[in-house]
């Protein structure tokens, strides 16, 4: 696995230390610490994991093990425009997979990845409570309903430039 090298700013390091301290630097609180860290940074780059490991007295390997076990944690920064494709039951039966495939084809990334320019990231979610509009796609906070594979390019056009 390759990584984008991230330079953490002094205040980032201080923030991480603060998060760890709020859980008494307790190794058993690793998951909670990671939650808070991801909330704060948006993702968990290697550098963040190293600091968390040091503060909690755990090996970096252990921390990485936990980060890669839970699908909620991510080591990849979200794109400027995070795309979420609903693959809940209703969306799925109405063709969400084809929409997903089209996004993958156009953006040349898979689920959980971010385009190299950092513009788009793609994830799947299960039901946004708008099943009447299935299949549903969200870009940032904006909801698109009844999306067909043909409509994918039109959606992306809105974010160009």
């Amino acid at each position, binding site marked *: *696995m*390759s*990584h984008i*090298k991230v330079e953490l700013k002094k205040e980032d390091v201080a923030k991480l230390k603060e998060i760890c301290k709020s859980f008494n630097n307790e190794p058993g609180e690793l998951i909670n610490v990671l939650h808070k860290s991801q909330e704060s940074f948006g993702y968990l780059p*290697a550098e963040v*994991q*190293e600091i968390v*490991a040091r503060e909690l007295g*755990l*090996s*970096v*390997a*252990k*921390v*990485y*093990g936990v980060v*890669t*076990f839970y*699908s909620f944690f991510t080591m990849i920064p979200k794109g400027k425009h995070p795309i979420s494709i609903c693959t809940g039951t209703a969306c799925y039966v109405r063709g969400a997979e084809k929409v997903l495939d089209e996004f993958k084809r156009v953006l040349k990334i898979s689920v959980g990845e971010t385009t190299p320019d950092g513009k788009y990231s793609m994830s799947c979610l299960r039901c946004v409570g708008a099943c009447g509009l299935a299949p549903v796609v969200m870009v940032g906070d904006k909801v698109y309903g009844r999306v067909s594979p043909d409509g994918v390019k039109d959606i992306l056009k809105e974010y160009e430039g």
Partner: protein
Amino acid sequence: METVKLTIDNKVVEVEKGATIYKAAKKLGIDIPVLCYMDLHDLGVENKPAGCRICVVEVEGRRNLAPSCSTDCTAGMVVKTHTPRVINARRTVMELILSDHPKDCLICPKSGRCDLQDMAVKLGIREIPGQEFAEMSTYRKDTSPAIIRDMDKCIMCRRCETMCNDFQTVGALSGVNRGFMSCVAPAFEQNLDKSPCTYCGQCVAVCPTGALTEVDHTPKVIRALADPKKTVIVQTAPAVRAALGEEFGLKPGTLVTGKMTAALRQLGFDYIFDTDFAADLTIMEEGTEMLGRLGKLLAGDKDVKLPILTSCCPGWVNFFENNYPDMLDVPSTAKSPQQMFGAIAKSYFAEKLGKTREELVVVSVMPCLAKKYECQRDEFKTNGNPEVDFSISTRELAHLIKESNINFGDIEEEDFDRPLGESTGAAVIFGTTGGVIEAAVRTAYEIQTGKKLERLDFTELRGLDGIRAATIDFNGLPVKIGIAHGLGNARKLLDSVRAGEASFHAIEIMACPGGCIGGGGQPLHHGNAAIIKARHEAIYREDAGKPIRKSHENPYIIKLYEEFLGKPMSDKAHHLLHTAYFDRSKKDIFI
């Protein structure tokens, strides 16, 4: 002690409360098969993630089968260990484990010594249903200087993790990812050489499959032996002779020094020498260095670096270079016996032979995998030519002997060659925890006090407890000695010294459980700590039977100083036999 009574396979057994079904069955002599479970009781290591489910048993009144390795006994429990339902479940579990496991057993380095293979035989697995649909893992192979990780063969038993994290506290390995992608890896799935791995090889020693194996140097050794232009010299570490026999069906603890020497001669090595010779040399250098530092302390020098730490163990050297970069000037600067041997072989002995160092090939037989890394370190090379060319493990030597059709059982015992094959009892005990420091005491005492030791057996320094301490009276001067084996114990001891909670004059550390006898390159103990104990006792038997038992009385060591080195810590000795340590804590973890 509170106990509970239960019935296993119609037999009643009483066990301590909290004991598992597996342990209770063992007490009755009932052998429940286990795969991920590992109990190294004497070392305080237990691995029971209950992950593989091979050890399931039927418990009356319980709906599902229970993993016996991690289910506590309760009063009145009725257990059946080998019912058709259980056997069926075990086979299914095994078939699932094997479904994505490579089937290249014929050429697998673990073939014949593989716990997974043995289990497949035991359970009579002949086919794997649905194999045609099964996806195979294709994880990249990671080859470090000492250890190969082939994660396609990992069954997630977590034994390596337990050794690396709980026992050694190295923290190089962890279970990562989930589902089909899960495996054991260093942080960020970097290769081992970018991790805090010390190459101690304890992960390899407990791996039940071919997922973790050593880098095999035997083909290179055979090539060197076949080259008429090369003079091939072999040195054997003290712990090898106490374990090699196990590979040939001999009882653990059988000493095979003479057989090993004869076998090496049959293999075609030109000179059969002994790392023990270099161990005696180590004592001369390290002992002198220790006395030098003690002398400074007595003279009131407050800056003197004490306690002096032994530096024979390359796993330990890697560990302190990773974890204690602030203490790099504390360990003895003496090279390890393996490297001292190579340095002397390629200078003193090469001169005697009238050959260049390039014409010599020095092979070491070691109980250790870190030695493979050690002999590749740049500071142990002259013009790119290493002091020791190849290091092979005890297991690899056994392979070589078998491959060459040498009948180890019947071979007549022979002796080492001279001069570099002569050694004392003090050198032999380098192979086990407490041995290096006992050897150092035997020599340092006599040099310091000018008196002859009345007893040579310092039993207060012996034993298998993880951390030990003793004070030896140097004729009125109390010398405080600490000993640790296992890197977790070493860390505890060092941390207490660093925090000022404990103070010692000298500390001996060995990375592996029991010292070199439990090294990562030794015959596999398959989780049986009694084997390590038997080797430990064998080492002291060898010492007791030696005519000379103090390093400074080795006549060839005396001659080496007279003819070549001058005196211990001389400029020449310093140049050839001492080294420096480096801060390796800041690894660039980014590819």
